[in-house]
């Protein structure tokens, strides 16, 4: 069953990952790992390479150097197993607006090989978990931006992945919806024991107990717990640390 994985394998392991786009390096020697139940913030300014990194982890493109393992399964060699273990919330909204919440979710369930009955059951379960239990039959078009994002999170968790990837999920949300989403996903991470990789450039989305990977100019500038990042950068707040780490040529890796 676990031909490529090990029982103690981290949910995500990225090692020596480099990628260039028309000759220009976008990612250089990126490496970090995520354990189950850990909320990791991938923090970086716009253009740091966050979306590229996500596209590589989700295997939308593949011309790269280095290894990516999901739950111990190398992405290239065991694409099926690796994909089955990850849930993704993309930066752009990807729901079918004219279909109902349930139809959107059962479509996704089918893409993971689930039968109709199981799909409906899981859709109900996950939608209730993100607090939209009574919106199953609602057309997505009628939902607010924050609610749509929650549907996408329910979708990402539908096939019970070990790893949930979210690429700047709060873009375009108002302050209240943003705070709600950050709070919810933190809670889900603990409750479900799923490893979360949350990309953002907004410092206030980092909780004190989170782990942080600071990405800038395609390189990992620092990674570790919030206190480790603070120690490495000499800053007193994560905002200050972020400024120190992402401006200038400082390279601190804890």
């Amino acid at each position, binding site marked *: *069953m676990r*031909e490529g994985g090990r029982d103690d394998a981290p949910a995500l392991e990225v090692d020596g990952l480099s990628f260039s*786009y*028309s000759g220009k390096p*976008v990612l250089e020697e990126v490496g970090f790992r995520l354990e189950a139940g850990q909320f990791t913030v991938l923090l970086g300014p*716009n*253009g*740091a*390479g*966050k*979306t*590229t990194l996500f*596209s590589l982890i*989700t*295997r*939308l*493109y*593949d*011309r790269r150097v280095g290894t990516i393992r999901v739950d111990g399964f190398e992405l290239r060699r*065991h*694409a*099926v*197993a*690796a*994909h*089955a273990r*990850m849930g*993704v919330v*993309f*930066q*752009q*909204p*990807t*729901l*079918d607006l*004219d*279909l109902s919440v349930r*139809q959107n979710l*059962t*479509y*996704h*369930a*089918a*893409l*993971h*090989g*689930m*039968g*109709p009955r199981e799909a409906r059951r899981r859709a109900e379960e996950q939608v209730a978990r993100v607090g939209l239990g009574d919106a199953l039959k609602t057309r997505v078009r009628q939902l607010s931006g924050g609610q749509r994002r929650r549907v996408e999170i329910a979708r990402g968790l539908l096939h019970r992945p070990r790893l949930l990837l979210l690429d700047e999920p709060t873009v375009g949300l108002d302050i209240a919806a943003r705070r709600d989403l950050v709070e919810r996903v933190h809670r889900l991470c603990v409750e479900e024991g799923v490893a979360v990789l949350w990309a953002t450039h907004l410092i206030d989305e980092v909780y004190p107990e989170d782990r942080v990977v600071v990405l800038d100019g395609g390189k990992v500038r620092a990674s570790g717990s919030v206190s480790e990042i603070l120690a490495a950068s000499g800053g007193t707040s994560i905002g200050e640390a972020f400024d120190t780490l992402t401006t200038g040529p400082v390279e601190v890796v804890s």
Partner: protein
Amino acid sequence: MSVGMGRYLHCMRGVVSRELLRFVHQRSRFVAALVRPLIWLFVFAAGFRMALGVAMTDPYKTYILYEVYIIPGLVGMIQLFNGMQSSLSMVYDREMGSMRVLLVSPFPRWYLLVCKLLAGTLVSIAQVYVFLTIAWFYGIKAPPMGYVWILPALVVTGFMVGALGMLLSTFVKQLENFAGVMNFVIFPMFFLSSALYPLWRIREGSYLVYQIAAMNPFTYAVEMIRFALYEQLNLDAVMIVVATTLVLLALAILGYNPARGMMARKGGG
């Protein structure tokens, strides 16, 4: 990890039912898809009826009216537009990201793309049968069994134009460029084929156009449908269409290959 047969079928059912649901919700698209061939039939063909009677050619057993001749071409037109429409929606999906949702499914990418083609083909077949029903009431009737015979021909044609659309969608990066595809792909494919005039007639007009039409795979799709509608098998046409489909499909799958496809060229922050 093995993925069982049943899971593959669930995946296919999911992709197909999404496409059908979307189609049901886009009624304007359905109407547009029908209005186009009906205008050709009622206005163009009716007008040329006197001028362009078609002499007896296979598979017809008698002299036929131009309206009768043009039906298989219009069936092909429905499928051609539908194939381009789904490739347009693939470019749109890719910009909007829902293509990503499809491509992060654990199923092999070629299988996902084939499911997508099947879904588009089924939508086009529904359109074709509605069109043929209207034509029937208008008085253009083929042998009843012909309507069954064309089904496999419609499946193959649907896959051919769908795969062509899919291949084009890997080249067309933005939605805005799509008008160009219409001008440079759909119109030449349709007009430079046997859809509107039989090849022998084109040959009388221009030998060059005849040669182009004789090399156009769409000509063979139309002929395959034409023969099937009259309960005959045009084996040459079937082989040409199937071969073209396989080549286009292979290229489209290659185009969506993560290691070398166009997806890789869309960089991001």
